[in-house]
């Protein structure tokens, strides 16, 4: 297998990433000087107890929030210091996001949900939506509404949606948290498949199978990385 030089560049490069929330007069140091890199094509699991700062980290990586201090590079572009508009632009083009609660819009069909991010990015997407629905095995459900689907199916739709704008990075916050273990397993398999096709995947999870499936684990505790390998 030949490796092109591009494959060595990191998709995520975080340096002393810190997020402090202001809760009344109290400061909550949700993320405390976290440094790590994720190379292209890696499958990483982030674990840690509740309140460790996992979601906070994912929000920063997904350009949904600005860090209090520290630097962050995504796909070789500096994120820290970007304004709201530029972060939206970067989020749109670089990151796909999967949520614990699926986050499908109940009034839209499966297909409409999938193309939504492309709509915001003003991309054409019909062919790609079809391809992605095929890939997650739900093409026959394209005109259904979310409430007609099982939890596992909803999460598959959400994954197809996350991929519609061809992101470099797939972020997921406890994607199996609302699923039974068998259904969760099929989602884990899907993540593995996507990773095998070259997608960089970063998953916050409590699921042991998911953690094992990931080739790298990062453990967060009290906003710090325990062992950043």
């Amino acid at each position, binding site marked *: 297998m030949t490796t092109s030089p591009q494959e060595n560049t990191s998709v995520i490069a975080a340096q002393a990433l810190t997020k402090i929330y202001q809760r009344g007069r109290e400061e909550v140091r949700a993320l405390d000087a976290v440094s790590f890199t994720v190379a292209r094509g890696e499958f990483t699991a982030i674990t840690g107890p509740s309140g460790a700062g996992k979601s906070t980290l994912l929000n920063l990586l997904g350009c*949904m929030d600005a860090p209090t201090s520290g630097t962050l590079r995504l796909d070789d572009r500096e994120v820290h210091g970007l304004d709201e508009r530029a972060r939206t632009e970067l*989020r749109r083009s670089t990151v796909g996001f999967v949520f614990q609660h699926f*986050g499908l*819009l109940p009034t839209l069909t499966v297909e409409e949900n999938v193309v*939504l991010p492309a709509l*915001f990015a003003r991309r054409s997407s019909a062919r790609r939506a079809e391809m992605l629905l095929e890939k997650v095995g739900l093409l026959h459900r394209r005109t259904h509404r979310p409430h007609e689907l099982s939890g596992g199916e909803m999460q598959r739709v959400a994954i197809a*949606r996350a991929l519609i704008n061809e992101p470099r990075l797939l972020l997921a*916050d406890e994607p199996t948290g609302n699923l039974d273990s068998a259904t969760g397993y099929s989602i884990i398999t899907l993540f593995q498949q996507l990773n095998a096709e070259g997608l960089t995947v970063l998953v916050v999870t409590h699921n042991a199978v998911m953690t094992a499936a990931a080739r790298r684990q990062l453990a967060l505790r009290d906003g710090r990385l325990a062992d950043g390998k």
Partner: protein
Amino acid sequence: MLTLVLHNLLRRPLRHGLTLAGVALAVAVLVCITAFGTGYRQTLRGELDRAGLQMMLVPTGCPYDDAARVLKNNTLENSLPASALDLARRDPAVAVAAPFLMAALPRTDTRRTDLWVGLDETALPLKPWWRVTAGRAWFNGPDEVILGADAAALEMRAPGDKFFSPETRREFRVAGVLERSGTSDDSIFFIPLATTQAMFAQTGRLTAIAIRLKDPALVREAAPRLQEIPGAQVVTMTEMMGTFLNLLGAVRTLLLALGVIALTVGALSVFNTLLAGVVERSGELALLRALGASRTQVFALITGESLLLSGVGGALGLALAVAGGPALENLVRPWVPFAPAQTLLALDDRVLLNGLALALAAGALAGIYPAWRASRLSPALAVKME
């Protein structure tokens, strides 16, 4: 994007339905009020134009009010001498000088007061809208009466019938019955001028003289000359229009204030609905941001909702105005000074378009804050969404 807007509105049918009803009502009221003012002006001018009058000679006193009363077939306390008529007819600029004598006759058997109007042939060219449904349009002798549509219905008389007035002990023959005109003419008993003068002991007296000039442009030249006629005062139609519109002004201001209040309430209801929707869907809106929607796009989404609400509400309001306007007009008519005969509602394209534009503007305005609130939602909230 449009389906997204539409679906969101359809999701809360009751709330959005009520808002639509509110907006529709507000727009209907506002449109009716605007249409009403415009219509009043138009029909008034039309009525005056059709009569082809340029001025009116009335007894000295409170001239504007008198002239207005005469035009609406109301009686006056004082009167003009018949000599004024000869003087007016001798004026070189005058084409037609038509004398009128009006008298109110309280009925002893009922509580009604009948209005009798005496006129001569010279009045005919000034009432081009006079048409009879039955009988003849003019008197064949001194004891003939032409009845307004309502008067005929009330007295249950048809042409050829005898008609006795107990209070004046006079018997008439019905010459004709007028077509319903919606004007005050409908309830009037028209008889020859000389008969009126005899019947009400007003020999040689007149209530007013309506004057048509040979050329409308002669008004400025003729008015001072006619003003010289003893006991008479000239009121031009332009002056009278002004008086009408002034009298209407107060009513209009009141109605307009009502309309503005209605629209404000409508806008507030849009505001309330949208804000509730934004708060309720904050997780969902944050999700859209997380999926790559910009602040502008979220702002546009909510603005789209407000425009759709106010636009559809406005359109319903226009339909409501067209359907229910006449009923509203009847409600308002009693308060209108000297209401012209025809409908006062001029629901033309311009009035309707203005109404819709106003609704959209109010909706857009009402949507600004909710849309701004929505656009400020952090995409990070999406993670917490159920």
